[in-house]
C-alpha cells in the first residue's frame, strides 16, 4: 500500500527548491508517525517518489508524492501510526489534516488516498502540465497578438542549452493550450498546457516567444495530467472535505 499525496506550494515558499521540499515532506511524515518504509543499506533513506519536479520559484496547486507504507500497519484504508503518532489510527482525511498541519505555511495537502501500489512511477506517467503565469514588462495586447502568432505557426524555435552548447529546438508540438486570461497587478496572465514528453517544456521558455524583452512573473502549476485507458486525467482530484489551513 501507499499514500498518494497531492499538495500545493504557494506564496513565499515557491523559492524553496525540489530537494528541500523532499526534506520538508520527510520531516512532516515523521512528525505524524506515518508508517513509512526505508531503503536498505548503510544509510537508509525514507522511501518516497515525487511527480514531475517543480522548478524553484514556481508555485503549484498540483504536486504529487507517493509514499510506500508498511503493509502491516494499513487496514481497511486506515493507517496505524508509529513513532511520534504511536497509538493513533488515522482515516484518510485525518492523515490529510495531520500532514497539512505538520507542513510549513505555504504547503497544504489538497487531496490524499491510501491505495494499492502499482501503476508505474508518476514521474514517468505525467504527459503534460497545466500552467498559469503572468509576464512582467508586457501589455495584454502585445501578448494576445504573440499568442495568436504562435498558435498559427507550425514551428516555434527556442534556444536550449544542451551540454554547454546552445541549440535551437522546435517546441510547437509541445504547446497543447495557450491563451490570455486577463491581467494581474504584475501584468498579463497566460494559461497554458505544456508537454512533459518527450521533454518537459517550462513557462519560462515561452517568455522568449511571447514577449522577448519581458520577464516571467509568478508561474503556478495547476495540473499534472496522466493518461488512463487513453483518457486524460489527474492522478488525484482535490477532495472537498478539507478546510484550507489558516495562516497566522
Amino acid at each position, binding site marked *: 500500500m501507499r499514500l498518494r499525496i497531492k499538495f500545493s506550494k*504557494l506564496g513565499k515558499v515557491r*523559492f524553496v527548491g525540489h530537494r528541500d521540499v523532499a526534506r*520538508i515532506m520527510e520531516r512532516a511524515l515523521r*512528525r505524524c508517525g506515518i508508517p513509512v518504509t526505508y531503503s536498505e543499506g548503510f544509510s*537508509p533513506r525514507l522511501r518516497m517518489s515525487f511527480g514531475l519536479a517543480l522548478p524553484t520559484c514556481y508555485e503549484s496547486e498540483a504536486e504529487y508524492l507517493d509514499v510506500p507504507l508498511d503493509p502491516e500497519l494499513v487496514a481497511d484504508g486506515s493507517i496505524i501510526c508509529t513513532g*511520534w503518532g*504511536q497509538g493513533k489510527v488515522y482515516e484518510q482525511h485525518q492523515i490529510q489534516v495531520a500532514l497539512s498541519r505538520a507542513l510549513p*505555511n505555504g504547503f497544504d495537502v489538497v487531496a490524499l488516498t491510501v491505495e494499492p501500489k502499482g501503476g508505474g512511477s508518476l514521474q514517468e506517467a505525467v504527459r503534460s502540465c497545466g500552467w498559469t503565469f503572468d509576464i512582467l514588462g508586457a501589455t495584454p495586447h502585445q501578448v494576445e497578438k504573440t499568442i495568436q502568432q504562435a498558435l498559427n505557426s507550425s514551428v516555434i524555435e527556442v534556444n536550449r542549452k544542451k551540454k554547454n552548447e546552445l541549440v535551437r529546438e522546435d517546441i510547437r508540438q509541445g504547446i497543447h493550450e495557450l491563451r490570455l486570461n486577463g491581467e494581474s497587478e504584475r501584468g498579463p496572465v497566460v494559461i497554458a498546457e505544456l508537454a512533459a514528453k518527450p521533454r518537459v517544456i517550462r513557462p519560462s521558455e515561452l517568455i522568449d516567444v511571447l514577449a522577448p524583452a519581458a520577464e516571467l512573473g509568478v508561474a503556478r502549476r495547476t495540473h499534472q495530467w496522466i493518461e488512463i485507458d487513453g483518457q486524460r486525467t489527474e492522478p488525484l482530484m482535490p477532495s472537498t472535505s478539507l478546510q484550507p489551513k489558516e495562516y497566522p
Partner: protein
Amino acid sequence: MTINKAAHDLEIRAEDGIIRPQMTSLWPRLEPLLPRVEKPARYIGCEDGANANIYKPDATSWLLTYPDTYEIGLPNQGLQILYELLNERPDAFAERSYAPWTDMEAQMRAADVPFFSVDTHRPAAEFDILAFNLSAELVYTNVLNCIDLAGIEIRASERSDADPLIGAGGHCAYNPEPLADFVDFFVMGDGEEVIADITTAVGEWRKSGKPTGSRESVLHALARIPGVYVPSMYDVNYDDQQFSGIRARHADVQQRIPKRTIADLADWPYPRNQLVPLTEVVHDRLNVEIFRGCTRGCRFCQAGMITRPVRERPASQVREMISAGLERTGYDEVSLTSLSTADFSGIEDVVTDTIDEPGTCGRVSVSLPSLRVDAFTVGVAAQVSRARRTGLTFAPEAGSWRMRQIINKLVTEEDLYDAVRSAYSQGWHRVKLYFLTGLPSEMDEDTLAIADLAERCVEIGKQYTKKASVTVSLGGFVPKPHTPFQWFGQNQPEELRRKVELLRSRLRHNKRVHLKWHSPEASTAEGITSRGDRRIGRVIEYVWRKGGTFQEWSEHFDLNLWQEAMIASDLDIDWYVHRHRDESEVLPWDHIHAGLHKDFLWQDWQDALAGYGIEDCRWTPCYDCGACTEYGIEHVVASPSPPNGGSQGTGQDLTTGHLVPVELRPRAGVGGTQ
C-alpha cells in the same frame, strides 16, 4: 497570487488608540529579485519556530544578525536563544538577518533595496538595535557591509541620534578593539540575562523619541551595564607604536569590563522551539546544548578559556529537550553540543535513551561533536552506531606527546588508538582527525608525528575493515586573546606552508590517509584581526571598501587586500601577527575581563613552555584561574569524577576503575597569586 499583503495597508492600533504605521515590508520589492539569485530560499524566512507576527509598536526592536550566509548563520544556537528570549518579553521583539550572498547584494544595491530581516522583510534601519554575532574574525568585513547595506554610517562617530544602535557579542567580542570604531556597544559573555538590561536602557531612549543628543545618553547608560563595553566612552593611549591602555571618560563608567555568566544552565532550557529552516543549512538537525564551558584547559582554545566554569544541563532536562525537539521538528538526527561532549556526566545513558526513545522508531542518529578520544569508548561507539552512523571526528590537535603536553591536550597515543579501534570495530570505515600546526616550540618531528599517528590508525582500522581510511585535517594555529598562548608569535605563512608540504610529501604514498589543510594565508588575516588593536579598524574598512567581503570563503579570500590595507594604514603585519609578546606588554584586550587572571594565564604559558600539563579543575581542587572566584559562581557537574575510559590525562590505563586519580605533576606558583 501571494499570501502577503502589501505593507502599507497595515496599521496597528495600540491600546491607547493611537494609530501607528507598521514597519515597512520590503517583500514586494524583494520578490522580483529572488528568481535572479542562487538559493533564493535563504531570503524568505518562513522557518518553523519563526515569529511571523511579532510586531509590538512600543517595544524595543532587535535585529539579530549573523554576518555570514544564512546556511552558516541559521543554526547558531546563541542567536536562536536570544531570539526566543527577546520575543517572550512584553517590552521587546526580535527578528533575524543574515549576510546576503554577493549575487543578492548586487541585486539589492542595483534595486536600492536595503538590508532586511528574514522574518517580516523589514528594513534593518527601522530597528532600534542591530546586534551582530561575532563567531569568527574573518566576518568583520561583512559586519561593515551589512551596516552599509542598511543605509547606516559605518563609523559609530558619524551616526545620527535616531540611527539604530550597532551591538555585537559572541566569542570574538572578547577583543572588541578592531571593530571599536564601527560598533556602538559590545556584550561580554552569556547573553541570556544582559539582554534584559539593554532592552530597558534602550527602551527609555525609544520612549524619549530619540531627540538630539540622546544617543550620547543612551550609550552612557549602556556603558554602565555590567558586561557591556561602549568603546566611544574610552580614550585610547599609545606609547610610541605600542598600545598602552584605555581610560574611561566618565567616573561612572566601568574601567574594567566584566563578563556575564549564567550560573545554571537548567534555568535556561533554550531554544525551546529550535528553528527548522526550509532549505538545507549546516548542522541541519536538532541541536541540544548539554553543557557550557570547559575546563580541560587546552591552551590554544579560546572557547575553553572564556566560557568557564563548566555548567552541565541536568540529564533529565537534556532528555526532555531531545524528545520534545525531535517530535516538534521531525528531525532524525540530534547533536549533543558542548565543547567536549564525551565529558558530560552519564553521556552513554543519554545517548542510549535517545536511541531507545519510541518516537524515533530507532532511526535517530546521534552526533557527538568535539569528542575527546580518552572518553570515547566501545560503549559509546556501539550506542551511537545503532542507528545511522554519523561522521566521527577526533581532535588530538598535535602529533607528539611532547607537543600535546605543551598545549595541555593530555591524550595519549593509546587513548587515540583505543578510540579509533572502538570506532572501526563498531562499523566505521573512516575517521577524521583534527590537528593544528604552527604551535609553540613545534619541531618538524612533531609535525611528522601526525603522519605516524594517522598511519597507525589506518593499520588498526585494517584489522576490522578493508576500506579503513583516515582523513587528517590540518589547521594553522592562530593565537587568541585571553589564552595562555596570547603572547606567542604566530608562524609565518611560509613556515605553515612548509609544514603542510612536509606532511604532504611524507603521506604522499599512503592512499588511505587523506590530508586536508586550511589556507595559511587566511591564518595571517585571522591573526591580524584576532590580536589587533583599535588601529586595525582602518585595515578592516580598507579591505571592505575594496570589495573584500566573505573572507571566510576561499573563493573570496584575498591576502593581497589585507597586505595592501596594512601598508596603506602604515601598520606592520609582523608586529601584529608574528611577534612574541612579553609579560609587561599591555595587551589591547586587557580592559576586558574574561574571568581569567592575567598572571594565571602567564603562569600557564610558562608551564606550557616547560612542557607541564595541568589537570581539569572540575574534578580536582581549584587553582583560582579567576573564572569562578571572581564572579562567585561554581562548576555545575553531576559526576564527581571524570568519565571512565582512556587515561583522562593521567597517562594511566583507567578503563577499569571508576574514580580517577587525577594528580599529575606538582605545579608551582599557581593559585591565589593575585
